[in-house]
């Protein structure tokens, strides 16, 4: 990667860092800066300091604009935390079934009608949950690129941090359930699987969405709207369960059930719908952008 930028630069470890740091700059500037470093014969540490100094100044200047802050406050923090909880809840709630169907697979699961029904039910539920997570994540990544192109990679990184660390110090209902204890005590299901779920179902789709946004090509409206409606339905469907799970994970609950059918959420306004609203925000934004793009493409539009 770095060698493509500066074939004449030494390939020592310090220079590899310089190569990587150069990628933080815009292509034109990267080219000029790289030439300046080669021409002046700067040694690797001052070169790294120079490039990092320039990259930091560039980023700070970008954050004087309001758009990166909208991306941060509107997407990274709320959606990042929601996806963090949702992805871990998805992983934890499916760990037992994964343990059952993968670690202890037998063809009897398909041969016995009742077991077959259970298998398809849980596999279907896992797939739909994964689709909802990936869809909301893709839309969030797309919005990060649409809101602020030049800070998009920084905001994506921050989204990743929010997703990976957003549940620190909390637990899930599945973990609190003693019947799941043996499975969720295994290192793979306790640590690796939840992180894999966040990486594959959240961070990768968000990265793809951001890349798609930076390409700048118009989105196909019909597939997008139908996809967004499906994801929205998949998000609304488990909304109450998810919100309840998040509230429990964070210790915001009581034992008594509230009038809204959620445990202990009666006194929290909009609690059952807050997760859905946060998840629907990027979806609705992407659909709005695609609609506006379509409108501007119309030859008869003003």
């Amino acid at each position: 990667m770095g060698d493509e930028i500066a074939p004449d630069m030494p390939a020592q470890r310090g220079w590899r860092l310089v190569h990587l740091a150069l990628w933080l700059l815009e292509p034109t500037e990267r080219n000029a800066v790289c030439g300046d470093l080669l021409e002046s014969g700067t040694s690797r540490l001052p070169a790294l300091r120079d490039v990092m100094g320039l990259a930091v100044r560039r980023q700070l200047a970008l954050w004087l604009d309001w758009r990166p802050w909208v991306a941060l406050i509107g997407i990274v923090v709320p959606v990042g935390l929601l996806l963090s909880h949702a992805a871990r809840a998805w992983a934890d709630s499916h760990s037992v079934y994964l343990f059952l169907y993968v670690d202890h697979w037998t063809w009897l699961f398909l041969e016995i009608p009742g077991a077959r029904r259970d298998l398809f039910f849980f596999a279907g539920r896992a797939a739909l949950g994964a689709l909802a997570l990936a869809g909301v994540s893709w839309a969030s990544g797309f919005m990060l690129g649409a809101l602020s192109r030049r800070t998009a990679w920084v905001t994506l990184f921050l989204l990743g941090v929010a997703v990976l660390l957003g549940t620190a110090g909390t637990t899930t209902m599945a973990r609190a359930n003693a019947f799941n204890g043996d499975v969720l005590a295994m290192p793979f299901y306790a640590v690796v699987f939840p992180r894999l779920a966040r990486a594959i179902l959240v961070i990768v789709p968000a990265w793809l969405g951001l890349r798609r946004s930076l390409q700048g090509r118009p989105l196909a409206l019909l597939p997008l709207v139908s996809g967004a409606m499906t994801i929205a339905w998949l998000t609304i469907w488990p909304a109450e369960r998810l919100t309840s799970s998040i509230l429990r994970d964070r210790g915001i609950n009581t034992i008594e059930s509230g009038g809204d059918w959620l445990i202990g959420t009666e006194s929290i306004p909009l609690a059952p719908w807050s997760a859905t609203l946060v998840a629907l925000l990027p979806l609705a934004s992407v659909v709005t952008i695609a609609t506006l793009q379509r409108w501007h493409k119309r030859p008869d539009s003003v």
Partner: protein
Amino acid sequence: MTAPLRPIILRLLVYLTHNVALIMIGEFEYVLIAAATRLGDEAYGAAIRREIASTTNRRCSLGALYTTLDRLESKGLITTWMGEATAQRGGRAKRMVSVTGQGMRAATEFYEAVRRVSRGVSWATK
């Protein structure tokens, strides 16, 4: 009522329009314009950096150089463009710099202001 607000509004307008005729350039901006003017057709990133380092005996960071170039360009004091690539630079293009008439005037104004304010001042140290 509007009299006390006038300087604030004026400053705001100046800020919004980057009207350098009313606000002087900064010290480093002046140094950069002067170095670019001295170099003439050979004014580009690395050369300006060398020129500043040799004349001021101070290191000029790439970050300071390139962000100041951008600021000066947005104020209309310089123009920049990508120049030719040389083997010495590993086939990389140079960011060439040319000082505009407005840039010359801003630098002259800064220089004259420093000269005027320094008149009659003795810098002899004890």
